[in-house]
């Protein structure tokens, strides 16, 4: 064994190849089967996709690094289920490119925070967490309310995700910009289109309290309010046991 190595270590290319082989096996064995074993991702026939406004909000969540403090993955531990609700299923993040499971909980898990609080609370809290939760150590995101949401690129975003396998229809892609505006303006001209394309259960509201302009706050709150509500398979399955 040491003799073989004594020879191998004389050849840099040989050494390089040996390293690549040794370091490839583990990844192959663990990653490839996740695509072939069907039970890995549960089935959720009626799962809906993020609306353009929610997707924009998700991108803001990524941009601001909320995942540095918040997980979106309730583990299969009874205290977590009692605190946050049914444990997360793989299917719930099947359209998440990339996933936002997180690795640190400086703040609470957000996987099921959707509709837990009011829009007003969410926007006040983001605007200045300590105005509603004096003990909070979360950063204040005052600029969200002041910044108008850029909606012009949303058709491209949806098109990209469609190419990656998220089931957006062509109509959804085409109308993405208007749908984003419509979802934040319940009495406006585009509101009905959102409901028609994404279902009646879609939240169409002035999320930041002002229907006049579509701000980044609208988008982020819309995203937070849909967390855990794309599908209810988790509530239907064993994940909800005990509740």
């Amino acid at each position, binding site marked *: 064994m*040491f003799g073989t*190595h004594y020879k191998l*270590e*004389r050849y*840099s*290319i040989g*050494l*390089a190849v040996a*390293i690549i082989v*040794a*370091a490839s*096996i*583990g*990844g192959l064995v*663990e*990653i490839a089967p*996740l695509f072939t*074993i069907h*039970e890995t*991702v549960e089935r959720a026939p009626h799962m809906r996709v993020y609306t353009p406004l929610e997707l924009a909000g998700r991108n803001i969540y990524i*941009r*601001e*690094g909320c*995942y*540095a*403090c918040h997980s979106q*993955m309730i*583990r*299969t*531990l009874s*205290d*977590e289920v*009692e605190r946050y609700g049914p444990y997360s299923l*793989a299917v719930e*993040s*099947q*359209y998440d*490119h*990339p*996933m*936002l*499971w*997180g*690795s640190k*909980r*400086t*703040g*609470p898990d957000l996987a099921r925070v959707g509709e837990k609080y009011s829009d007003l609370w969410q926007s006040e809290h983001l605007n200045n967490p300590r105005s509603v939760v004096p*003990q*909070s*150590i*979360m*950063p*204040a995101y005052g600029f969200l309310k002041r910044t108008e949401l850029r909606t012009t*690129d949303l058709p*491209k*975003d949806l098109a*990209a995700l469609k190419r990656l*396998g*998220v089931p957006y229809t062509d109509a959804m892609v085409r109308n993405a910009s208007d749908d984003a505006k419509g979802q934040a303006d319940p009495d406006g001209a585009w509101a009905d289109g959102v409901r028609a394309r994404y279902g009646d259960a879609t939240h169409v509201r002035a999320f930041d309290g002002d229907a006049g302009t579509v701000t980044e706050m609208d988008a982020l709150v819309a995203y937070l309010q849909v967390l855990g509500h794309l599908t209810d398979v988790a509530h239907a399955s064993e994940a909800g046991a005990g509740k």
Partner: protein
Amino acid sequence: MVSTMTANERQAALVISILAAIVGLAMAAAGRHDPLGVHGAMVLLTGLMCAFWVIRDYYKPEPPATRLAAYYDEPIKAGILLALLWAAIGMFFGDWVAWLLAYPEMTFDAAWSSFGRMRPIHTTGVIFGFGGNALIATSFHVMQRTSRARLADQFTPWFVLVGYNLFCAMAVSGYLMGVTQSKEYAEPEWYADIWLVVVWIAYFALYLRTLARRREPHIYVANWYYLAFILVVAMLHIVNNLALPVSWAGAKSYSLFSGVQDAMVQWWYGHNAVAFFLTAGFLGMLYYYLPKRAGRPIYSYRMSIVGFWGITFFYVWVGSHHLHYTALPQWVQTLGMTFSVMLLIPSWIAAANALLTLNGAWHKVRDDATLRFMMVAAVFYGLSTFEGSFLAIRPVNSLSHYTDWTVAHVHAGTLGWNSMIIFGAIYYLVPQLWKRAHMYSPALVEFHFWSAIAGTFIYVFAMWNSGITQGLMWRAYNPNGTLAYSFLDTVIAMHPYYIARAFGGLLFLIGTLAGIYNVWRTIQAAPARTPQSDQPILAVAQQAGS
């Protein structure tokens, strides 16, 4: 830097600088409504600056053939200074975000200065900026010395250094503008990722070409580790960063993978970024500078072999220990956990081999702060790998995951192991490269050592306490069967520990700044004589012949 290049190399440098400037211009124009445009401008500026440097010295006389009689140390010097610069930036942001968790108002009312954007500046700044530059610089040094051969050419090292730092600068400035893929330790967007691949290929080629010139038939252990670092990081980086850009004119992209597969790929990457960036590369460093400074032979060649292949093979299996109890199938978690336990053995072999090498040199450890940095690094390496394997056990992870216990583990590794070995190597290298008899102030090295040790202990103990407290509070049940604490109770309970951590971090940062000052003054001091032995074999042979 240009005056040490040959005419051909100057030509290549000029062409590539101009090419870079053109690409930068294209990016700036296409992305003028997007942060991509800012990065385009950065690339353009870098290209222009490099072109300017080359042109300025273009017609200077070529370096004499006698250059081949010496090692090519200029890029190493630059790499060390860059590493120190990034250390100051990265640790400053680390301590700032640490204070923010205790006093959230200690920042500006601006998007760029919120915790979520500055935290990745810290992690990227220290791991890739500080750690990466130190790895590149020391690898240039180690590959030349252990091959007794000069670097293969005078242009590629600069391409690697400048290119790599351009990547780091794009990464960090991107976070300030909100450009991130949100993949931990792989946050930079698609174009920066592609650029890093180009740089990395050049780096690998340089390594192989220099090894090919070596005079010793066998390749030394340190080089095995550096090679593993370069190769596996390339593999991880490419797969984890596969993404579809929304458009060529924008920074945003969507990861190719989603959900559970994305999580597994991310932590296969994330863990092995630790394994091959923060461990394999650094073991390369340890395997050169520790025996050198101690003046002792490596304790066991055979242990080196078992340790190296154990680490290379086992590490890749364990990424799933970051996903215990999640929606990742349980079978993968089992593999992650069991391989993590097995991984402890090769890890400890490497640590033990280093510490046993010190047998016969312990008096030097006592007297020499530089060697003490290296010794402490080996100890912390052993400690953090033990802790890592422990944390990978499912029931333990159910308590530690998501809490500050992970952060304690991280910083036992990065402060105690990575930073200590880097500083040890730097204190060894700086007088040698700049040809000084010794560091400007040995007392300041002592000071740095003790403030680093104190800072590390305060940091790690504070986070052990807060992590375990928080984990226990989350799962605490009242005797009547209900949960005892609300989440907010745990946030409040963390406050004193967060202050302690920020204070420990400050100590560590002060030590680092003292080190930078010391290095600076050493460079300013008057040169001493070159040691005769620090030359490539080729040159020695020539001198003997003439």
